[in-house]
């Protein structure tokens, strides 16, 4: 029974689904397993995957950041405006990252010092950052970024000897670091503690506010970095870049079994969730499945990801109760 329950964890299910999608795609769809296709499909998830890392940490700690896609847009708009003004690209990047960290700091400050719920705060800053992006770049689109950097961001150039595009490789490195931090350090354990019972965590001596602040800064920082990647990958800096992306990120993280109430889930699950949505979308597109059906499939998966752990919990609880009454 316990062994059974152990393997029925939702993140394992998502991992199995991911493998199933991959095998089904390889078996049925010509071109799916081509390295060029996999490079393109993986790279298409680059920004989502990058932002999913700090988002996982936030959700585990019982928080959420809805302003990430707006920060991506602000970073993109800023990069565009500065590039047009003749700034060196190597100077634009650190400045954008700084703005991202500051945006995250504002989120974190409002949550920890003013004491507002993160959902409300980041709904506000979602609009604020997008508005700032429009102020910075207006309705313009800036293009003609240096070829060398764009090449780096698109899937045409990959890490030598592999089919992994650079943004995906970078994501891989950051994912390993995040996984170690979340699952092997005191800091990671304190995130679960905060997510499970914030007050208890505080009484246990965990510096709840400080940690939450760090998480929001991290999220803003990574989102602005994703903004640079997005800008280079599409070769177009725009204030409306990445609209709605925050929902895809959160959906992927939840699909990966991170509990929205906090305190539960693994980074591996979240990453499997991101890849599952990305590869499934690619597979369905290759098979000419219409966009509406794709949206429905993703929606059903999400509902399943929220429902299944609840059902499993209820079933095992009932079994335990029955076992308890039988032995009594």
């Amino acid at each position, binding site marked *: 029974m316990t062994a059974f329950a152990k393997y029925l964890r939702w993140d394992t299910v998502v991992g199995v689904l991911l493998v199933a999608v991959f095998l089904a795609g390889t078996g049925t769809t010509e071109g799916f397993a081509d390295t060029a*296709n996999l490079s393109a499909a993986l790279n298409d998830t680059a920004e989502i995957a990058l932002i999913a890392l700090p988002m996982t940490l936030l959700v585990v700690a019982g928080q959420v950041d809805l302003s990430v896609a707006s920060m991506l847009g602000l970073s993109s708009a800023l990069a565009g405006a500065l590039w047009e003004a003749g*700034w*060196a690209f*190597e100077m634009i990047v650190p400045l954008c990252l700084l703005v991202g960290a500051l945006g995250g700091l504002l989120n974190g400050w409002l949550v920890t010092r003013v004491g507002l719920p993160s959902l409300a705060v980041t709904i506000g800053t979602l609009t604020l950052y997008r508005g700032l992006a429009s102020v910075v770049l207006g309705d313009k*689109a800036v293009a003609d970024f*240096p070829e060398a*950097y764009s090449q780096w961001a698109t899937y045409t150039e990959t890490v030598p000897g592999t089919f992994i595009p650079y943004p995906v490789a970078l994501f891989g490195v950051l994912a390993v670091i995040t996984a170690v931090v979340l699952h092997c350090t005191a800091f990671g354990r304190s995130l679960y503690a905060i997510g499970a019972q914030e007050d208890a965590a505080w009484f246990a001596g965990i510096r709840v506010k400080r940690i939450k602040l760090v998480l929001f800064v991290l999220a803003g920082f990574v989102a602005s970095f994703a903004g640079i990647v*997005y800008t280079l990958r*599409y070769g177009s800096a725009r204030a409306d870049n990445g609209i709605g992306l925050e929902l895809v990120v959160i959906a992927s993280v939840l699909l990966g079994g991170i509990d929205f109430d906090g305190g539960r889930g693994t980074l591996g699950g979240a990453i499997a969730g991101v890849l599952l949505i990305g590869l499934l979308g690619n597979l369905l597109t290759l098979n000419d499945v219409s*966009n509406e059906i794709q949206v429905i499939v993703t929606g059903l998966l999400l509902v399943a990801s929220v429902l299944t752990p609840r059902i499993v919990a209820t079933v095992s609880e009932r079994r335990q109760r029955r076992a308890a009454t039988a032995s009594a």
Partner: protein
Amino acid sequence: MSAYSRTRRRATLTATAAACALAVTLAGCSGTTKSDAANETKEKAANATADPDAPLKKNLKIAFLPKQINNPYFTILDGSGIDTVKELGSTAKEVGSSDAKASSQVSYINTLVQQRQDAILIAANDPNSVCGSLKQALAQDIKVVTYDSDTAPECRDAFINQASSEEIGRSQIQNIAEQLGHKGEIAVLSATQNATNQNTWIEFMKDELKKPEYKDMKLVKVAYGDDDDQKSFQETQGLLKAYPNLKGIISPTTVGIAAASRYISGSSYKGKVVINGLGTPNQMREYVKDGTVEQFALWDPKKLGRLGAYVAAALASGQITGAEGEKFTAGDLGEYTIGKDGEIILGPPTVFDKNNIDDFDF
């Protein structure tokens, strides 16, 4: 706990110091600026030669990638294009996302390349975002044709323009000026902020307004309805509230003009504010009949789709390469000559009013 936080504080300090050092180092270098990048522009390889007598190939695979699917305008356009491709003995399909975002078009282009299509017809949501992927397609000898909304010329073989942009832009102002007696405030309700074609038309509208005969007319605002019915409806409402002296709205987009007409027909502005722009007869029929709208214009999207099919097939068959001056015949549409930068112009737009609207069904 305190030891832990001390370590962390030290770590934070180190990270900050490292970041500062990095910034300073980078500031020291001259770096890559826009002027450097400008020198990198690449030319499209012109390695193919056209053979005007080559027969149209059969069994070609052709894909239409509109700005968004389920947009009535593109449904008609692509439907007609797909039918034409079938008449020519090849197969065609329409793919795309239900949102008009550039980023969603990119993943579709990538999969079309993977599916080894012979030609891709695309209405670009952003002229640059799709460029990288289209270049990948071109590199694999997939013919790329833009229609309705263009990309940078080096990212496609040909561009089918529904009408000359200048002609559309200027005629929009001329038409509404005539209705208003060359007097009063006007506004534009456009699609998305980055729609290439809309923005070009708006530039020509502004230029036309500089002429002395329009001295009593003023363009007070360009609003964006994102080709979303609800948003366009709300933007219309907003325009009329914000500018009480508004006399006319030009909406050069089928979604926008229908939403604006719907709002005005049910409001007190009916008969007082003139709506003009580009719309489809089927969507606009009731507003023309109930007197909300006197006239509007559009090219025939069926013809545009048909021309698209012929251009794609002619390119894939080697009849044309997209170079200026090449000629080809598009079935019953007649002969076309490719203009500068691979541009092919369908023809002048048609003006619809209550006298002729029932002659059209699209």
